[in-house]
């Protein structure tokens, strides 16, 4: 047995290829997904209709898509900073939960009060919560050389348990029939719909603004350059005087802060109270979004929308086609594999060889 495949680096990668790669990866993943739906004894055509067409043609579902893309956009933009710098924050889910807990905590503490200051305060608290939580793996890495991969991931489980404790214990709604949930937030603590009878709130606009800022930071700022340099050529970045530890801390604070903001927006704009499971794994899905968007802000914005379509499709497929959500989860992992393989074929040419390696 031998590996007759060899990777040969490409001299340059055309822009068309760069844009087409993630699209192609998505198509391949969808085809494999269709095959699995067919193996499960359902009609792939119907599944594609529910997963892809319905969310885009039904106006109500379209709003849900934009709502769902909001946290994905915010979190994935933050993750891009980490991944570009070759720092591996894989605990965005935990930072997302902490943002919700901090933001929701403000809503609960100010329950019954009214005023335009409540929402901004919740936002600040959400950002602070996410930042603090992300600072833990960053400091442990800087100070003690501990792999940020494991610590950030471990903290996700801790965050889930913290949320569970709060809504079953001190923050449980006394009038909630013993359900594990907080009091419902008052209007002053909820992001209001942008237009009458709709559901879309200002969170989406905020996410777009964050995308814009991220584009500027990467294209125009020294910091954006330092992040990229530190990821691609850490030694060179060191010689250039970019402080490695400071970059680690800052990219973690950015991604934690944005994940925290996303958590606050989810709690305030979508759920309207704290309850277990509001994370829905969006912090992990955002990792896939970041890679599908080739770690660029514009790409992340577009892929947030694509993945949101699939997630909304998955919700209705659970009802109309009895397709379990696990299928979507499986699909997401497979999609990431396809994207990574595509990235590799972008950088290298696969060559078949006669001799053994």
């Amino acid at each position, binding site marked *: 047995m031998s590996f007759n495949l*060899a*990777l040969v680096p490409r001299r340059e990668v055309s822009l068309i290829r760069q844009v087409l790669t993630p699209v192609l990866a998505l198509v391949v993943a969808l085809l494999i997904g269709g095959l699995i739906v067919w193996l499960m004894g359902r009609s792939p055509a119907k599944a594609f209709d529910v997963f892809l067409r319905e969310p885009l043609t039904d106006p109500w579902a379209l709003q849900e898509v934009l709502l769902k893309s909001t946290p994905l956009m915010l979190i994935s933009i933050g993750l891009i900073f980490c991944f570009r710098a070759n720092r591996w924050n894989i605990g965005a889910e935990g930072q997302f939960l902490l943002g919700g807990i901090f933001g929701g905590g403000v809503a609960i503490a100010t329950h019954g009060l009214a005023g335009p200051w409540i929402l901004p305060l919740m936002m600040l608290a959400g950002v602070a919560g996410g930042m603090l939580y992300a600072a833990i793996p960053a400091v442990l890495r800087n100070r003690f050389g501990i792999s940020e991969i494991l610590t950030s991931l471990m903290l996700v*489980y801790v965050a889930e348990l913290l949320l569970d*404790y709060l809504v079953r214990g001190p923050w449980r709604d006394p009038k909630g029939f013993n359900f594990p949930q907080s009091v419902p937030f008052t209007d002053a603590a909820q992001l209001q719909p942008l237009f009458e009878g709709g559901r879309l709130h200002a969170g989406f606009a905020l996410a777009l603004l964050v995308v814009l800022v991220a584009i500027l930071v990467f294209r125009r700022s020294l910091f954006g350059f330092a992040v990229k340099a530190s990821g691609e050529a850490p030694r060179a970045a060191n010689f250039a005087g970019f402080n490695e530890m400071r970059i680690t801390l800052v990219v973690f604070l950015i991604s934690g802060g944005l994940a925290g903001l996303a958590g606050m927006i989810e709690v305030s704009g979508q759920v309207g109270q704290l309850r277990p499971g509001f994370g829905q794994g969006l912090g992990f899905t955002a990792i896939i979004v970041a890679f599908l968007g080739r770690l660029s802000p514009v790409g992340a914005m577009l892929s947030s929308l694509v993945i949101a379509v699939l997630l909304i499709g998955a919700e209705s497929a659970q009802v109309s086609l009895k397709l379990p959500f696990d299928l979507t989860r499986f699909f997401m992992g497979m999609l990431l594999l396809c994207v990574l393989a595509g990235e590799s074929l972008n950088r290298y040419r696969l060559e078949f060889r006669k001799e053994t390696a």
Partner: protein
Amino acid sequence: MEMLPFILATVFTAATPLLIAALGEHVTERAGVLNLGVEGMMIVGAATGFAAAVLTDSSVLGILAGALAGMALSAVFALMVLVFATNQVATGLALTIMGLGLAGLIGQGFVGQPRAAIPPVKIPLLSEIPVLGKAIFTGDFVFFLSLALIGFVAWGLNRSRFGLLLRAVGESHGSAHALGLPVKRIRLVAILFGGLLAGLAGAYLSLIYTRFWSPGMSAGRGWIALALVVFAAGHVWRLVLGAYLFGGITVAQLHAQAGAIGLPSQFLSALPYLMTIAALLFLSISGRKGAGAAGSLGQPFVPER
């Protein structure tokens, strides 16, 4: 005193899946490959093992099927990182996400079905020793298999020719390649071995530890196994020690919850995760920062022509 052998036995049962998965990942990492998909391979092993056991009405076949399922998933990982030279961190994460979904699909029809225990193996004579006899010399066959695996891995990595080649590949894939070693082939073996053991650990969870299947039942054990490999810093004996310590913490935590000692149960449930971080911190403070990791760990290998 009556309780002691029983408690010790539960510690071993809680530790065994961690130990098995960590042994597999240890070998993979010695070959210079970081597979973060342990959690995914483990849960697929748990689901497949349980489903196969119910369908064939044989727990032994189930355990075998679980191990093979873990290996199948690791083959996907091998294809990605060896042929396509993809980023290992991202690929492993994808494997875990995919595995969690796949396990849900496989285990769908089996949620809540109970499964009878596998009859324990008693080592003749030794199992008659008070306390230790019941704790160590009476157990399920996978527990004894895990003890054999400790010896096999320790001997294999340190004494066997293949093990030395494997470690050479892990230390510096460039030099190994220049020497004419089949880097990818050796890594393939290491990755598949890691997958086999992760799957076995998963099957142990659903068929021996809990004896039912429920979604998400691996609950981060794959990640703790990964942390154990870091904690081991290259030494199998430290890995074994770490796994049994964690088994002890898990059992103590469960007893504390049952005993209602006034702490919130969520805090106790969080202990294994917090202890993992604490263990890594301890390792660092005791001056073994970054020690023991294979030189080429996690770096993609693209030989020049």
